[in-house]
């Protein structure tokens, strides 16, 4: 058993490293590696990924394990599960961390089951107890509760962490690169990705954004969502939506914020024509400042926001967006 603390890099479809990886490295260095007396390490799983080792080093990884395999070109459950499980069995780290992304949620619990480890999901705080057990905090009960969970005497201790929960802070190292040398056979990959369709966007990603502008059912059409996009772009914000808006086909599924959709915690969340359901709040209720624009004074969102305007969005948004534009062009 080693004392190493591992952060598995989360890669986007375009192959770049997700911000949550740098956040996790920074927080693990600050709260875990020192206290445990173990080295902070990065893990890269994919095809042609070793070039990212330097980026992980920039955020404090002294060592980077690489599993580079053609079969890992696109994320696939079995490939990732085999790669990480085999690495864990071989090097026996103390702590293993990954981002709570769509992919993290998919393979991390499988790896934990395979290596017999405990795993917690979507941590918003991580540290160590005095007897060096991983301790995490997370949201539960539709984000109405925050449990603290502590690992018992098992090795390794695994957790995913919520994007945008920690600050990424540089601590440049030149990492030693270790070839993980895990064998993966084509027959091991049972679930095959037969199609990937993605569309690039110039807007920031929801889970990484400092500001979010979201629209609900009250927008009434896909066409009207331009009001959301305009304001979002003016503020350099990500654009989000409720399930009702996604279901109605006003915007794509990956804009959904909430219990099923993305969890966001920006410093500014502007909710337009959104009633404020428990499920929507489960995904954005911890935002620092919440603004609501809604025509119904009885909408539940007015009981749990910081600022609000009771009014028709089609009256209020154009002048509001115009004033934001004026402000932006001033500064």
């Amino acid at each position, binding site marked *: 058993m080693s004392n190493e603390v591992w952060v598995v890099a989360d890669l986007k*479809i375009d192959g770049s490293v997700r911000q949550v990886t740098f956040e996790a490295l920074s927080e693990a260095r600050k709260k875990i590696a020192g206290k445990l007396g173990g080295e902070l390490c990065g893990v890269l799983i994919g095809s042609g990924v070793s070039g990212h080792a330097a980026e992980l080093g920039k955020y404090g990884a002294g060592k980077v394990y690489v599993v580079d395999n053609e079969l890992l070109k696109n994320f696939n*459950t079995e490939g990732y599960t085999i790669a990480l499980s085999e690495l864990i069995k071989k090097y026996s780290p103390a702590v293993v961390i990954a981002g709570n992304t*769509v*992919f993290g*949620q998919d393979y991390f*619990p*499988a790896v*934990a*089951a*395979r290596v017999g480890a*405990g*795993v917690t*999901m979507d941590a918003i705080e991580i540290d160590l107890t005095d007897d060096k057990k991983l301790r995490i905090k997370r*949201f*539960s*009960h*539709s984000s*109405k*509760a*925050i*449990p*603290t*969970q*502590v*690992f*018992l005497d*098992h090795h390794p201790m695994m957790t995913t962490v919520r994007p945008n929960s920690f600050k990424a802070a540089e601590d440049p190292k030149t990492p030693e690169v270790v070839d993980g040398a895990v064998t993966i056979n084509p027959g091991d990959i049972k*679930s*095959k990705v*037969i*199609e*990937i*369709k*993605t569309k690039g*966007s110039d807007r920031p*990603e929801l889970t990484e954004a400092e*500001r979010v502008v979201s629209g609900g059912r009250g927008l009434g059409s896909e066409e009207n969502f331009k009001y959301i996009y305009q304001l979002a772009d003016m*503020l350099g914000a990500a654009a989000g939506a409720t399930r009702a808006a996604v*279901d109605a086909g006003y915007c794509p599924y990956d804009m959904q914020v909430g*219990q*099923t959709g993305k969890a966001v915690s920006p*410093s500014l969340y502007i909710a337009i024509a959104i009633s404020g359901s428990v499920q929507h709040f489960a995904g954005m209720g911890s935002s620092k*400042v919440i603004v609501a624009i809604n*025509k119904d004074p009885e909408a539940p969102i*007015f*009981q*749990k*926001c*910081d*600022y*609000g*305007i*009771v*009014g*028709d969005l089609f*009256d*209020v948004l154009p*002048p*509001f967006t115009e004033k934001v534009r004026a*402000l932006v062009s001033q500064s």
Partner: protein
Amino acid sequence: MKILVIISQTQDTEAKIKVSAAGNSIDTEGMKWIMNPYDEFAVEEAIQTKEKHGGEVVVVSMGPARVVETIRQALAMGADSALHILDEGSPDMDSFAMGKIIAGEIRKLGGFDIVFTGMKIIDEESGQVGVQIAEELGIPHVSLVSKVIEINPTANKAVCQKEIDGGHMVVEVPLPCLITCPDAMNDPRYASLPGIMKAKKKPLTEVKVSDINLDGLTRVKTVEIKVPQIERRLRIIKGQDGPMVKGAEVEKAAEELIKLLREEAKVI
């Protein structure tokens, strides 16, 4: 086809959350219990699969005696039989232990073709039990499936769509496999009155967790639960004659909001 659906009971979404005196669990006194909402979609998908391909739907659920009510609901929706893993609140059982136990009982049930389960339970919300069960059973899984495109027992495969950042991916997986279900993938049916009557007579088998060795299974312990208290400013700008801002008030309201965001909240 033999179709399994793993479901759980949970507290009503609207429930007010109170921490128990011990400080590390939720006080459930007087709470309303419901089927975990995500599991409703799993049950619906299981029943639709049966309607298309024939076969039977077996419900599996673990929990205290009260979960029988939720099991009956799934049977009333159209499932055929059920396995109840009875556990009267084993202290400190975590998701890992739960996944092991449920998988162990499923293995005893023998051959099945496909397993459905919710993406997560809305109380603990860790979203790991389904994937763990698949791993324990040694079958592939597809998580967070937004649409089951095809289940083809003859070709022994399922094709599922899954949403990812900026788009979607389509995954083809051999049977048997496990699928975790978010909401909105289908439209769960209500239990009909005849369905409810029939459900009472459908076979329900019970096994006890006390007959299962739990030693050393648990990996993680909840030591404390806090209810987050976020004070909101609640500064709502309203109209003069009627709740909505109108006419000239609109400009002023927009102006005031900008000022508050700049000077008070300092976020723009």
